[in-house]
């Protein structure tokens, strides 16, 4: 065999082996691996069940009277919404691509809006929890407790919180018209120009008698850094006690709640997570938080929810400090947001969380150690009896 013949045979062999290897790899990757992916198998019974859906779909396509052509995407989204609604969990929701974007913006920190924290009551009322200082909402005269009835003529009744927030937000500079029912029961219409809202995350100051005050408004992605910076500034002034204000904090990320709680709790359990099969995950505090020694009180109210309740619950159960104010909201579930292939999102309740001493929060909330009401008169007179009570408690701790 001549040299060039050997060379050709080797080359052919090489090409053969190479292509066989690639094809084999491709085949396995393309056809075999998907079978091992952890997708739930739709059982036959379930499949048959679902035939009814396509039966209904075909009826609509063939018979429905409509002036505009049917929109398959709207129908698909509708089907997802309905399927999700059938689960009966108000925190599990479908988000259109726009809503999913808004939701992410929210947790990240800035968007076009009116700067008002709102919450949905069990009766499906959209209630103003707190207008942010200096926000267009505050300037327009919105007050905590106001109920938003309509947005641009669309009634809120029947919407969920995400849908309601979505129609209130919009590009900055545009106007939104709200129909409000105030605490006195009067209805009035306000027109507000949307602005760029940066969700204020913290507010800190030194009160009299060496008491440091730190408010955390949201547990968004910016919060841990802002909390650390605020604490460092406060610590420079040698505080003798700290007052943590979580009133109106609607929550945010679980990991953010843990990071904030870490600053106050030196080791120990922060929360317990359980899935529906009862599998537990214990979340423990790191050692070496910034404020683990001095007396601590936490201000809470009905607007303190979710991640804020995690922080408050961890502080209360570890006997690190006491809670002052009113009972908290009672959202003891954890959601993940899944992005679907077309950019829409699905917020799914995946777990429940419990306080370190295994108290259930969902539907119950936390009861403060010292209950102090905040009346409408207090609000009008700009008094803060909850803060006053917490300060006097902290002072009594110092004198001991």
């Amino acid at each position: 065999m001549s040299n060039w013949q050997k060379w050709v045979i080797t080359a052919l062999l090489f090409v053969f082996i190479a292509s066989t290897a690639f094809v084999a790899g491709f085949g396995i990757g393309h056809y075999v691996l998907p079978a091992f992916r952890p997708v739930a198998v739709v059982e036959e019974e379930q499949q048959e069940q679902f035939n009814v859906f396509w039966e209904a779909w075909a009826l609509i396509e063939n018979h429905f009277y409509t002036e505009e052509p049917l929109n398959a995407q709207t129908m698909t989204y509708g089907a997802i919404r309905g399927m999700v609604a059938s689960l009966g969990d108000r925190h599990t929701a479908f988000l259109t691509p726009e809503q999913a974007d808004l939701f992410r913006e929210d947790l990240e920190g800035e968007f076009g809006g009116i700067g008002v924290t709102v919450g949905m009551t069990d009766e499906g009322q959209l209630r103003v929890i707190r207008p942010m200082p200096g926000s267009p909402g505050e300037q327009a005269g919105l007050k905590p407790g106001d109920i938003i009835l309509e947005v641009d003529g669309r009634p809120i009744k029947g919407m969920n919180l995400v849908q309601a927030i979505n129609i209130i937000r919009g590009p900055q500079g545009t106007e939104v018209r709200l129909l409000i029912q105030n605490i006195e029961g009067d209805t009035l219409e306000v027109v507000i120009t949307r602005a760029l809202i940066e969700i204020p995350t913290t507010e800190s100051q030194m009160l009299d008698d060496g008491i440091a005050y730190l408010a955390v408004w949201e547990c968004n992605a910016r919060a841990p850094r802002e909390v650390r910076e605020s604490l460092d500034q406060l610590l420079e002034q040698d505080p003798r006690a700290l007052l943590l204000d979580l009133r109106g904090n609607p929550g945010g990320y679980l990991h953010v709640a843990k990071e904030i709680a870490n600053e106050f709790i030196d080791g120990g359990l922060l929360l317990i997570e359980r899935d529906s099969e009862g599998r537990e995950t214990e979340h423990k505090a790191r050692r070496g938080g910034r404020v683990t020694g001095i007396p601590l009180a936490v201000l809470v109210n009905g607007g303190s929810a979710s991640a804020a309740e995690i922080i408050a619950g961890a502080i209360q159960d570890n006997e690190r400090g006491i809670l002052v104010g009113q009972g908290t909201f009672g959202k003891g579930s954890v959601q993940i947001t899944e992005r679907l292939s077309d950019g829409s999102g699905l917020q799914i309740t995946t777990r429940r969380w419990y306080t370190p001493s295994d108290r259930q929060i969902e539907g119950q909330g936390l009861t403060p150690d010292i209950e102090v009401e905040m009346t409408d008169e207090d609000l009008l007179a700009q008094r803060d009896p909850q803060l006053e009570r917490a300060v006097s408690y902290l002072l009594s701790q110092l004198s001991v």
Partner: protein
Amino acid sequence: MSNVSGRLLPVLGGVRRHGGCFVLLMSPLLALMLFFAGLVVGHFTTPVNRYPMPNTPAEHVEQFRVFWEAWNGIEQKFYSPIPLDYRDMTCGAIRGMLASLGDPHTILVEPPQHRLETDTFQGEFGGVGVSIAIQEQQPVIVEVHAGSPAESAGLQSQDILLSVDGTDVAGLALDTVVLLIRGPIDTRVELVVHRSGQGLSFSIVRERIELPSLTWQVLPEDIGYVHIQFFSGRTGEELSRAIEALHEGGARALVLDLRGNGGGVVEGARDVLSQLIGHGIAFRELNKDGKESRHAIPFRLRTVGWPLAVLVDAGTASSAEILAAAIRDHERGLLIGEPTFGKGSVQAIFPLLDGSSVHVTTSRWLSSNGHPIEGVGLQPDIAVAPATGQKEGDLSLQRAVEHLALQLEGTAKLSLLSIM
């Protein structure tokens, strides 16, 4: 340049020096690398429908992918202390899909409600002839209908129902209990009731029970009054019986009360028109392709010639509006009361595989003269403001009676005149 090529050349030279031996040594390694490259490429070129899509029609696979992604997300991750109910999820999906159409009349009706609805529209069903209500979680017989099989069997009002055909009924929903008692005519149903401290068993043969869609009475001044609550397949038959009875009672004029009548089977309304007008157009229908069709009043030679007034209010809707509009369009009578609801959409009821049904808005009704009804309603000829208190009594009815009495007086004078 020269530097670069200088670095490359020795490598190529090396391959040449070792010849096929080197290539053979490198081959398994290369093959392995290529295998994994293939694996990765294969993996990511898998068609995106990685989710099982049961029976998804081919043309919707793309569009509907997100649904199955969501379904799978729920299935794998949702916190649910009880197992997921796929039937509920499917029904939820249908409801949501229908809701997205933005038409409040296109809805899913679950199997029990579908059966009850069918009975209502037929105006009859197989049953024993009792009315029941839920009192303190217990189904209680509140009325035993005169002449019914229940009455002959000896059931009494206030009997507490314990079981139906051996099924314990305490705590069940009213619809469920009603459906257990109803069944095909001439079949037997076993009832156990609790009466003054003892249990009593009854075995009753179901008979045809009629569900009246109207009531009637003779008012003073020889005015007949018929209140049609809804339209069933039997409304026409009921009306002819009522008119016969009213005639015997001396009636010479008719108040047709359609207040609170939300509609029903449109054939019922056409049968009524047949007896009052006898010919012409009952209503027009505009289908989704924009085609208009006319529906005739079933022809009838002998019609009721009495002066007629129709009572309407904001609860008068759908088939009842069709009827009222036709009476006015044919100048057969005046509408008295409040503006009507304005539901001019037609629903067809389609049964689904699982026993539920879908009401689908399939077309729009126009009045016999071609006026739209949807969202507009009918304005009464004589407007009567809704009563504000109990004291005023039924103002619309009073106006109708006055109006008809005047007309009767007029005809009386007229006939007197013709005699002279």
